């Protein structure tokens, strides 16, 4: 038995290694090529500084406390904007999803506004709010509102009518019907909306912060450009990527937590 187990285990670990390692192979190779090209001077530091230089710049900013300050400023904007826009989208989605009157009254108007790219409003927003926090939070909120609104509305509308009929025949109505049937039934769709909205949050923030800001990651990048610090610009881009990924992971964590009942998530593994 032992003799048999050993090659089997080795095979398993090889398989595991390829499963976890393989997706990282290409990024690591690219990074290596980049690093080598930079160290041999084939790439100018103006165009693309070495990865080590980017890390060094990050470390320097981290030690001076600047990095933390900018990260926090961006995170705060993203969070506040997301909460405001998300809640509004959720409430509007509930109103239109639950009441026919609400849908008739609001849905077509919301669909019209949705078709305006919210970044096109930047000049107007600057005129309204100046360049302070309100403008950026407003834009982020606007960007997150629609994905969450749409998916909440459709989620509630698409809850299995048979389940609603069953629940009504068991005496559920009003708040109880909403809480036990409609909300959980719409949740998978709402979470899809949350994931989309998180993507929009970062996109909006990048644009808003590069246009007018005195702190935040976007400001960090713009400031670095003035001083030709390509390493810091790269660092800022990298930070956006990491924050976006973190937000996405958070959304997936919520899914795993709230959709345990869903057959599609019972077998899902971390990818």
């Amino acid at each position, binding site marked *: 038995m032992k003799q048999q187990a050993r090659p089997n285990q080795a095979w398993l670990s090889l398989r595991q290694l390829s499963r976890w390692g393989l997706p990282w192979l290409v990024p690591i190779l690219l990074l290596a090529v980049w690093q080598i090209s930079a160290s041999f001077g084939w790439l100018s530091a103006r165009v693309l500084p070495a990865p080590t230089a980017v890390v060094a710049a990050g470390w320097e900013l981290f030690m001076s406390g600047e990095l933390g300050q900018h990260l926090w400023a961006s995170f705060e904007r993203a969070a506040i904007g997301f909460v405001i826009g998300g809640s509004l989208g959720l409430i509007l989605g509930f109103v239109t999803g639950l009441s026919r009157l609400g849908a008739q009254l609001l849905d077509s108007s919301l669909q019209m506004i949705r078709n305006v790219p919210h970044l096109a409003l930047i000049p107007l927003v600057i005129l309204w709010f100046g360049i302070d926090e309100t403008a950026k939070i407003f834009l982020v909120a606007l960007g997150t509102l629609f994905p969450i609104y749409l998916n909440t509305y459709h989620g509630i509308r698409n809850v*299995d009518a*048979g*389940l609603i*009929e*069953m*629940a009504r*025949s*068991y*005496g*559920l109505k009003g708040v*109880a019907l909403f809480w*036990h*049937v409609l909300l*959980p*039934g719409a*949740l998978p769709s709402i979470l899809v909306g949350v994931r989309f909205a998180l993507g929009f949050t970062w996109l909006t923030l990048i644009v808003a912060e590069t246009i007018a800001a005195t702190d935040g990651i976007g400001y960090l990048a713009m400031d670095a450009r003035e001083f030709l610090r390509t390493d810091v610009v790269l660092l800022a881009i990298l930070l956006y990527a990491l924050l976006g990924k973190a937000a996405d992971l958070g959304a997936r964590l919520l899914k795993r937590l709230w959709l*345990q*009942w*869903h*057959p599609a998530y*019972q077998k899902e593994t971390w990818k």
Partner: protein
Amino acid sequence: MIAPFVFSEHQIQLRQVSKNFGERRVLDEVNLTIPEGQFVAIVGRSGCGKSTLLRLIAGLEEASEGFIGLQFSDAQESRSHLRLMFQEARLLPWKGVLDNVLLGFRGLNVARYALEEVGLWDRRDEWPSRLSGGQKQRVALARALVHRPQLLLLDEPLGALDALTRLEMQQLIERLWQEHRFTVLLVTHDVSEAVALADRILVVEDGRIGLDLPVELPRPRQRTSSAVAELEDRVLRRIMDDQHPYAPESPQEVATPLPIYRIAV
């Protein structure tokens, strides 16, 4: 048998009940009384109006004309004495088995008893998506039973189950009915199921009750017995021949030489 409640003999009463969907008349002046505790099977071709009849009694649809009266032991909240089962189990997929049984109901002990009766107490924490079709229907049955219904309405609840599971469920339903003595209305397209379970078989055809047949066979019924087979045959014949309900069987017709048909075609 001593009746647990004292009230009028007729639990369900339909007088001249009609139902139209747009232009189409699905039920046409149906008159029907069902006494308390009776097991009634409603059979018929698909689209004959049998499910609509059940949905009217359940209050899921409004009758276009006529009167539907339901009487229960206490007059208040009469709909809560009535429970439905559908062809699909309609369990809430986001609630575990036990929480599904506890929907709109408080009382863990009763829920436990009901789940034990259907043999699924040890699966109480499972998600419905992990259960088989028969198990889901058993949970749905337990969910209906915790409310101690006086009237159980079954809309082809076994239609989607495989043959063996269906037999098992039929026995379970019969046992629970004998134990609790609620009134049962079972809509089914399976005539053998109707003959095996019911005290009375209603054949619905073209929105009317075409045949109202008492089944006075002792329980438990042997599916292979000649009396059961004969009855089954009679009901089936009635359903199949409903275009010519009173045409007598003529042996000559069967003996007609084939070529004539060929020419006719």
